[in-house]
């Protein structure tokens, strides 16, 4: 039980607004660095659009590769936000409070990034408007709603809208605090955004109710988004390794695994960069690591069942695909790395309390999980395509080109840059949640023992 510092509300404001009001010196250089990567990515995308997708490493039959992998990866990361803020809110886990904002933010930005990948991936991105908006009313040709690629933007768009609303509703009280502490154009900016928040009981009630309602409404979307992404793969009877019924829950649990890990990474970064040691405490890492043990083990169970049942029929192309995936160089190396990084190294480590409470170790294990989860998607997508059908004549190979690596770097930099830009104007740790958490958590004395306790409303 670590000592918890009780801060008064003024101190909370001062510490948490240090990102928005007193910008640290490194901020400018970090943003410039990330922005240059983002610009590089846009240039590369222009080059690819100009020359055609030949500049990637894609081939026949491996028509999908690193772009789709990265798309799935970012959709997976986006599951962090709702997992942390909605599910833990509904299950009344007190420790969620300081990380909710950052997790939701990660959701929003990773969804934006994910949404751009189908665009980058398409052969004629300038015609993508055909996809999302119904066009050509005169001839009665509408987008094909039977296509999972139509379900995708619908699900992701809904999720993005919901997450943005969720983020905004939770931001309102803090915007009012910022409005009262700024002058000039920033004051006007925050005044506009704060929607006249005064903090009276009715406003608080509305804010709480809308938060709970949004949490409950977001849950089905949360589950459906990655399910639909998994159905992109699972509905194709022609690809042996994909046509599996377990894909939807398997992808969702994997997404939670990688999303929560990404939140751990981000919490460690926030603690180091903005020195919010009083708010992001080892006990939060501890709680997240416990959650990750459960999620990671469940995900591993799904992985085993998935492999078991894909071998069930013992048919040619399925065996060929599993053979490539697990036993042929370089895929064997990726497969072993994926297993080690996503499960066998981090999860046993988290069983130890000393690891759970050590911030550097949590940082590195969470990064491991995300590298492993990227490899997982890659190992599902590419070997399955390269050994797609029973026609051994058309087996193919694939390796990503420099252009694809550049776009992956772009996606990382894009999310990072957006997070930093957000932190410049808004607090990354919610002020009001932190204050509430100070009231709602306390120490309880039982006999000689002191245990942490929380306040619950009684029905």
């Amino acid at each position, binding site marked *: 039980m670590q000592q918890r510092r009780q801060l008064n509300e003024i101190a909370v404001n001062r510490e948490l607004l240090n990102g928005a009001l007193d910008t640290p010196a490194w901020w400018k250089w970090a943003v410039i660095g990330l922005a240059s990567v983002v610009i590089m990515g846009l240039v590369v995308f222009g080059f690819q659009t100009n020359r055609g997708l030949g500049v990637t490493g894609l081939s026949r039959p491996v028509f999908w590769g690193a772009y789709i992998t990265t798309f799935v990866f970012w959709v997976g990361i986006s599951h962090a936000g709702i997992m942390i803020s909605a599910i833990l809110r509904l299950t009344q886990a007190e420790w969620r409070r300081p990380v909710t904002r950052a997790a939701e933010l990660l959701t929003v930005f990773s969804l934006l990034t994910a949404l751009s990948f189908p665009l980058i991936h*398409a052969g004629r991105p300038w015609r993508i408007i*055909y*996809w999302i908006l119904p066009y050509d009313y005169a001839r009665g040709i509408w987008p094909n709603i039977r296509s999972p*690629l139509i379900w995708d933007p619908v699900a992701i768009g809904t999720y993005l809208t919901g997450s943005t609303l969720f983020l905004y509703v939770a931001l309102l009280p803090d915007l009012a605090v910022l409005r009262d502490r700024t002058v000039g154009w920033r004051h006007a900016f925050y005044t506009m955004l704060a929607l006249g928040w005064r903090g009276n009981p009715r406003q608080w009630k509305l804010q709480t109710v809308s938060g709970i309602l949004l949490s409950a409404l977001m849950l089905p979307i949360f589950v459906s988004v990655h399910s639909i992404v998994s159905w992109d793969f699972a*509905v194709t*009877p022609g690809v042996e390794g994909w046509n599996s019924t377990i894909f939807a829950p398997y992808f969702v649990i994997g997404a939670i695994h990688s999303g929560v890990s990404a939140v751990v990474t981000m919490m460690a970064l926030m603690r180091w960069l903005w020195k919010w040691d009083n708010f992001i405490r080892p006990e939060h890492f501890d709680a997240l690591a416990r959650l990750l043990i459960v999620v990671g083990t469940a995900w591993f169970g799904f992985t085993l069942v998935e492999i078991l049942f894909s071998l069930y029929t013992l048919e040619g192309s399925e065996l060929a695909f599993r053979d490539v995936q697990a036993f042929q160089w370089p895929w064997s190396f990726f497969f072993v790395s994926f297993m080690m990084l996503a499960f066998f190294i981090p999860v046993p480590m988290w069983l130890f309390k000393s690891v759970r409470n050590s911030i550097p170790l949590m940082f590195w294990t969470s990064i491991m999980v995300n590298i492993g989860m990227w490899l997982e998607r890659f190992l599902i997508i590419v070997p399955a395509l390269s050994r797609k059908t029973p026609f051994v*004549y058309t087996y193919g190979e694939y390796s990503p080109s420099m252009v694809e690596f550049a776009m992956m770097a772009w996606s990382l930099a894009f999310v990072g840059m957006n997070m930093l830009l957000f932190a410049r104007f808004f607090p990354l740790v919610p002020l009001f949640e932190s204050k509430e958490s100070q009231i709602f958590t306390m120490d309880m004395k039982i006999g000689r023992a002191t245990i942490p306790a929380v306040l619950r409303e009684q029905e």
Partner: protein
Amino acid sequence: MVTQQDSPYNWGMVVDVDRCTGCQACVIACQAENNVPLNTENLYKEQRTYSWIRVERYWEGEFPDVKARFIPIMCQHCGNAPCEPVCPVFATYHNNEGLNVQVYNRCVGTRYCAIGCPYNVRFFNYWEPVWPEALRNQLNPDVTIRSRGIMEKCSFCIQRIRRAERVARRDDRLVADGEIQTACTQACPTNALTFGNLKDPDSKVSRMSKDRRAYKLLDEKIGTDPNVIYLARVEEKAEAVHG
């Protein structure tokens, strides 16, 4: 939604594997007829070659008792095509003549249809296709040249089908059996390929498709219901060559 009218045609093909010698004449004929880009050395290295019809070659048995087996594979024009429902923009759909058609202009290049196709007969234009100056005048004016970023595949030489149908409509009759020859059937020296109307019970393809050697690729497993019917190779020890 525009409803499709009934058509008297259901175009199909019969491939007699027993007759195929693997000479690749069909591949060349198709390449010339349909303005399929040239398969350069680079395309081979990148594994991005185009061949709307390909002759797959398999080895059977161990050396020295080894036999070469050939099977020509083109778009199967499935009645229940896995490529069709997945296209978000209806760039590929089934028309009322049993053809699985590709609308080049509508395609945005998601390559989802190629993923769905279990026969790997869909081809993506990774590069803008170029022909040497000498071949510019060889291009078929009836066939669109596909730009980069879109899918293409065997169309059963739809330009020839359309021309024959136009002539027949002008003469107020149906297209006769054998009137349409696709480029590959025309070029096949052993008559291994036959094209025709499967809806006409007296057409050559209909009669051949009732042969007891007839089978369809992957139909039992995936239920694609192809319009291409294969006739199995006749062996002393009779067994299907493939599929």
